């Protein structure tokens, strides 16, 4: 059963890679951004269906780091430095939000 699920996932990922890198005709940076967007879709799956609150907190933390990388590639394609500023602030806010969520999950108040 597990091997069957693994095979289905492998076929889906291979199909995505084929369409993204060989059929889709765009700039190379857009192809790379598509891979990050599909990864963000997987993270959103964990945010929505995560069995416990800790799973959702982990997923939101990881989403913040992924978006920093995506903003760096977007800045390279459009040749705009200010997108990296947005990325740095995003990483900072996502880190503080993760710490605050962890504290709430542990059952303490925020000024402890």
């Amino acid at each position, binding site marked *: 059963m*597990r*091997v069957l699920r*693994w*095979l289905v996932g492998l076929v889906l990922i291979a199909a995505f890679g084929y369409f993204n890198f060989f059929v889709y005709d765009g700039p190379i940076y857009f192809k790379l951004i598509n891979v990050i967007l599909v990864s963000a879709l997987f993270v959103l799956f964990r945010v929505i269906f995560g069995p416990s609150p800790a799973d959702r907190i982990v997923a939101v933390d990881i989403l913040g780091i992924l978006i920093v990388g995506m903003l760096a590639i977007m800045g390279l394609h459009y040749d705009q430095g200010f997108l990296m500023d947005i990325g740095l602030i995003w990483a900072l806010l996502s880190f503080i939000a993760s710490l605050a969520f962890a504290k709430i999950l542990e059952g303490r108040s925020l000024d402890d």
Partner: protein
Amino acid sequence: MSLAVKSKIVVFILAILVWLALTGLGLQEIITGVIIALLVSLTAGHFLITTHKQKHTLHRWLYAVFYFFKFLWEMVKANIHVAYIVAHPMLPIKPGIVKIKTKLTKDAAITVLTNSITLTPGTLTVDVNEDKKEIYVHWIDVKATGMEECTKEIGARFEPTLTEVFE
């Protein structure tokens, strides 16, 4: 000169250097940077340097560079290990939380050790018991359960180098 004043001056110089590297030279940038750096160094500047200068500075820096490259190599190994586990159809994991002992005493040294444990193959720091110098580690592929064997397996990769750098 007291320690806090020295620390504040170091923080001021570092802050203004980083600010100028981020924005570029210009009258407006320099004025804004000086004001912000003064505010930062006056309010939060006394946290950076808390101990007096120690001997053998060159020796420490050499060990720190050696530690950096060792850490980078361990991290590449960790990533390949995780990629292997995730891509394997049967998920070959055997997780558990074990306890290891450390001989480091300073807060900065223990922080660097725990961060390194988190980013290297198969291990994740869960908690630190400061009184007994014990670290609880989640291990994705448990090979031993006793404290001594786990210490030899996990902590011994970094501890000798960190002892040379910090103690």
